[in-house]
């Protein structure tokens, strides 16, 4: 069956995020009381797998091999079964 993983990738808190800082400053100039903005990535990944456990393993393997660089980033994800498309 098909599963959809929503993978959220963020820069580690210790890593400065210049894009977030630029947005925060712009919003402050517009009068919004923004304290901080961090920019991340949201990936929606559809995988085929018999079990949820295997699907989770697949997503973790993808993150470790390519999607996330652990030197600067961290990630989390939520996995849900995807309704089969109607024939």
């Amino acid at each position, binding site marked *: 069956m098909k599963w959809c993983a929503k993978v959220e990738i963020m820069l580690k808190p210790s890593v400065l995020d210049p894009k977030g800082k630029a947005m925060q400053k712009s919003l402050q100039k517009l009068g919004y009381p923004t304290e901080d903005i961090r920019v991340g990535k949201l990936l929606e990944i559809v995988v085929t797998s018999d079990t949820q456990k295997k699907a989770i393993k697949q997503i973790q393997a993808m993150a470790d091999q390519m999607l996330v660089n652990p*030197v*600067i980033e961290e990630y989390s994800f939520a996995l849900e079964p995807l309704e089969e498309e109607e024939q």
Partner: protein
Amino acid sequence: MIFGIIVFPGSNAEKDCAKALSLLGQQSDLIWHNSNTDITQYHGIIIPGGFSYGDYLRPGALAAQSPITSSLKQYAVKGGFILGIGNGFQILTEMKLLAGAFLPNHSLKFLERNVNLRVENQKTALARRFKNKQIINIPFANGAGTYYINQEGLNKLNDKKQIVFRYAQHEKNNSTDNIAAIMNEKGNVFGLMGHPERGMENILGAGEDGRLIMASVLDHLLRRWN
């Protein structure tokens, strides 16, 4: 000597590198990343600058998964010389052949100008023609040129004298400890965030310190291969 220059979709400095080598009397082949070329035949490998895979995901992240990377890793293990320039440096960190990672420039601008670098370790393949602490000037062109490494990694780089060049003091650069070029522990894989291949001829207005870096590489490899 003959060099292999690895080309990914989006590389854009491969011909500059080939030209730089030919100015020093050396040959090179351009190697498409998907080809089955046996890279062990080359005296050295250059991974040129550019925007491999459009910098999608992270600069160098997708190139680091390309078929050629397994032979590059073997080449490195056997002591082969690899130099990554600009995006090539980013690819080598994503391949984990070099420590650290790259972040977008804090200014969020693409920076393209000459920068001053300070020679930190002269006894390395990139710096044989210089003296320690010498200030050199080479072209610089990147959008994600901020080098990042954590304290533990930095201590290791310092302990093993793996930092080859730092940005000179007056250069406002947010890279960790002003790092501009490093090597692996064995001293055969190098990453340089600057473009020596664009500083080969005074007539182009970017000085000739780039030429001295390339000449240092040749000095180093001639010792190794003779």
